[in-house]
């Protein structure tokens, strides 16, 4: 009967998706293309690398949020699913930043 309960949940999820309008997906697609065009434009501006990197990463995070929220349907999931998955991911990725001070240290030492 476990399969039966899974099939019932699948049917309910499919039923929910039938009521989703496709119009927001076209808006999201258009927004993603516009954000990409802005990134390319910035690439041709002679900007200071740190400033450019900050702007590009902000744009990438906005694009990622749109893809996860709308295309991956996270917006329509229950709160428990949203917060557990996204918080654990952000925490793990943030932990990797521990290596960056070392990269800056090497640069300031002038080691090639």
């Amino acid at each position, binding site marked *: 009967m476990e399969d039966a309960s899974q099939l019932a949940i699948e049917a309910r999820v499919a039923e929910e998706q039938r009521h989703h309008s496709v119009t927001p997906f076209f808006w999201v697609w258009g927004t993603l293309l516009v954000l990409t065009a802005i990134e390319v434009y910035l690439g*041709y501006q002679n900007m200071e690398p740190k400033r450019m990197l900050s702007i590009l990463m902000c744009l990438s995070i906005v694009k990622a949020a749109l893809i996860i929220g709308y*295309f991956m349907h996270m917006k329509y999931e229950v709160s428990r699913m949203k917060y557990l998955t996204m918080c654990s991911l952000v925490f793990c990725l943030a932990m990797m930043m521990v290596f960056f001070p070392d990269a800056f240290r090497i640069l300031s030492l002038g080691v090639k």
Partner: protein
Amino acid sequence: MAEAALPSNVAEIYEPSLFGTYSKKVGMWLFLLSDSLTFGALLYAYSYGRISISNWPTPFHSGSIVNATIMTAFLLTSSLTMVMAVNASARGNEKSRLIYLLATMACGVGFIVLHGKEWSHLISEGLRLPIFPAVPHQEVASEFADVSKTVPQFAATFFGLTGMHMLHVTLGVVYLGVIALRRKFIPILFACWLVAWLATPSYSPFHYAAHVLLIAALVCSLIMWLKPKIYDAADVEVAGLYWHFVDLVWMFIFPLVYIMSTKIV
């Protein structure tokens, strides 16, 4: 099968799902979370090199940026067609589902071809890994011959990161092909392997990478032989999650690797 004796209120009889959705989807999310850490580590390694090496190369001319922008547009469009396929599948519209899945695969193939072209160009200009076979008659004064020697981290992180992503896109196309065409896709996959293997020169890394398609064809044959099934709306949605993830990762690779290494002339 379980479908035959499915009472209408079965989901209410049993304890509700912890995450409010079915297990396959939760399983795919867990896989994607772990895979995002793999890409996270590769992106951090690239960024570490970018920060710590003062003479980091900027090899991408406007031709490369235009190429990468078209690749990005292909992936974004493929995500739109994928979401339309999921929607059509939920509505039970089989014909639209097939058309949208094939459109998604076409965009994915377009991305791989353009990326392959970009790699081939960079390799012909001298950017290479030590494991790549030697290119015959390559000029010593090629544009990136020095880069591979003075900053070997660039080639290592560039090929590692984009190669891993290209592998994911290739496997994504195979995954969608199996969902869309089932057993009919297997001979197509074998044909693609033969074409990719025979049409690429022996010194190209793609000559060897083509065997990924052979392995994929064998694994897919085994899966469909052991567990033949008709893929339903839930399977399409789960495949869609994987595909959108591949798109999502590129949204970080594109600015970090290409835009940040643009050569302004």
